[in-house]
């Protein structure tokens, strides 16, 4: 499959018939201000989907629409073909883990977890068993009789998870559940969350503004920007083949190269490489780690330009342990950032290269 065909496949959201949740052309406004401008997204059963975006991108609003806390202004949400958006929140087979946990302060940990079972009229005899099993799943079985006010943030988070999972929802919605935790606990909870999701096999829709978290956890990432979907793809795909400059810069770091494409060749200043696709003024994304230092012994031009080679002056070197970051001045006001295996102190003019395939052609006019 050519690179172009692969990109084409990503362009189209996969519309599989067995999609659990279908979000179609969803529109939401607050006081006339558009928050979501026609979101379409399909979520498969058992998937870990992350809705990633800056604050104000509408990601939490989308989650609240799925949960039923807000009403749609347009479009529809379906679960297994049935309209979900017209069903009240308390009759949806969807549960939410709130950013602020929203643990009932007047109920014990046990009663918090039992809340959903009692509300739906589960048999009295099976409640204790299911509650303890859910608490065990999040390693909180020892706290069943505790008052929630005595729990730490991380423990409350676990109770909130157990309280949602005990109902065996079709979809679990998680609204930045880890953002209030400190860095170490956060990493630990990420790992636990991921393995928990594999264990229970429930569809997770996870909202975050943290791209590293999104990459670590997700099967797919939906990148939201100002109420629109910028790109939906797996973490490797979205990192390796960003569609737009925004996606490239939001997920990881990148160099944006403005190049003139003509006759299958791209030229950005003095840098020249082979490329496919129609000619014109094109922006390319080049990840810092795609740039390598060419040892002087091997400084030999690759004739077909499948590897771009250029000279640049190292303006700045930041030591980072195994990898250093170099700021390279390529002339013509073109600066590139390279992440290379620590070469020891370097300075002055050097030879660099990158594979032409690593320069990703971005979609134009995406900066709305």
């Amino acid at each position: 499959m050519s690179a172009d065909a692969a990109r084409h496949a990503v362009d189209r959201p996969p519309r599989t018939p067995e999609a659990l949740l279908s979000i179609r052309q969803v529109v939401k406004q607050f006081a006339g201000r558009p928050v979501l401008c026609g979101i379409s997204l399909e979520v498969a059963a058992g998937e870990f989907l992350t809705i990633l975006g800056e604050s104000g991108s509408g990601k939490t609003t989308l989650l609240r629409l799925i949960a039923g806390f807000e009403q749609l202004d347009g479009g529809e949400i379906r679960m297994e073909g049935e309209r979900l958006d017209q069903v009240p929140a308390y009759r949806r087979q969807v549960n939410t883990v709130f950013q602020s946990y929203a643990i009932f302060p007047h109920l014990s940990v046990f009663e918090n977890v039992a809340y959903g079972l009692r509300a739906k009229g589960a048999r009295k005899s099976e409640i204790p068993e299911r509650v303890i099993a859910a608490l065990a799943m999040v390693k909180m079985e020892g706290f069943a009789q505790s008052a929630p006010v005595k729990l730490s943030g991380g423990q409350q988070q676990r109770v909130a998870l157990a309280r949602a999972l005990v109902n065996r929802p079709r979809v679990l919605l998680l609204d930045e559940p880890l953002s209030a935790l400190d860095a170490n606990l956060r990493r630990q909870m990420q790992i636990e969350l991921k393995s928990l999701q594999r264990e229970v096999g429930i569809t997770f829709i996870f909202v975050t503004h943290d791209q590293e978290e999104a990459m670590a956890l997700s099967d797919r990432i939906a990148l939201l920007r100002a109420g629109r979907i910028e790109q939906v793809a797996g973490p490797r795909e979205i990192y390796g083949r960003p569609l737009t400059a925004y996606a490239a810069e939001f997920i990881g770091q990148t160099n944006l190269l403005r190049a003139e494409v003509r006759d299958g060749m791209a030229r950005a200043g003095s840098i020249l490489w082979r490329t496919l696709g129609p000619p014109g003024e094109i922006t390319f994304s080049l990840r810092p780690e795609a740039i390598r230092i060419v040892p002087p012994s091997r400084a030999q031009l690759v004739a077909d330009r499948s590897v771009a080679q250029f000279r640049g002056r190292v303006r700045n070197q930041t030591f980072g342990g195994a990898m250093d970051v170099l700021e390279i001045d390529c002339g013509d006001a073109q600066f590139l950032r390279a992440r290379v295996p620590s070469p020891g102190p370097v300075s002055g003019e050097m030879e660099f290269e990158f594979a032409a395939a690593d320069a990703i052609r971005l979609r134009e006019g995406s900066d709305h």
Partner: protein
Amino acid sequence: MYSRAYKASVMIPPLLWVAAFLLVPYTMLFAYSFWSVSPAGVIVHSWNLQNYLELLRNPIYATVLLRSMRIAASVTLLALLLGYPLAYYLSFHAAKRKELLYQLVIIPLCASYLVRGYAWKTILGSDGVLNAFLRYLHFTHRPVEFFLYSPFAVVLTLTHIYTPFTFLPIYASLEHVPRNLIEASHDLGAPPWITFRRVVWPLSLPGVVAGATLAFVLTLGDFLSPLLVGGPSGIMISNIVVSLFGAAYNWPLGAAISLSMLLLVLAVLFATEKFERKLRLS
């Protein structure tokens, strides 16, 4: 950090206030309640239990006290029945009208107690608004007399006066119910009425207890409403205290009733405090 001297100096004015206007009068009241009045109408400073025995011996005091408590309980119940739904509506559903409605509840508190008392007098009297209205509708042909000068009139007037006092703490506690708890309850499958019963109501109970206590205690000590609209059958215990300290000139007996009332109110406060703590922990 503030120095001890600073902290102590800040405490002096309120302590002086409490000493001069609370501690001293209550001590005097305590002393008076064990003295007596001679047949010549002079207060005799000899210690005895006559006043307290008189309270137990003469059934009029128990009757009036029970009536006072019955009226206080009725007013409390009515104030809760009126105040809670109002507070609930304001807190959860009033949206843009919230501010206006809140002010409408507060403004009557600025009107003088006497004005409100007399207002009910003009409404309930035999030439009053209510009777005129009933005659206009031809429900009655002559004025209904029992509206005014009855325990009913007292309950009505006091309910009107003290409902804002129950409304305010209930409203405050409802405003403090985190809204995401209500969303969480819906999210977990609880329809609105179960959400109310299991989340909103328990979390608003401290406000209910505070409001009920205020209404009960304030009503129990009220003497103006019975005076204005109560008539002979609507006399409350504080009216007796007023007359004993006034025309009847029996300060020792009045002091004994006052102290008994004080103990009763303290017992009520103590019980509700216990009750609220138990609710909060269960």
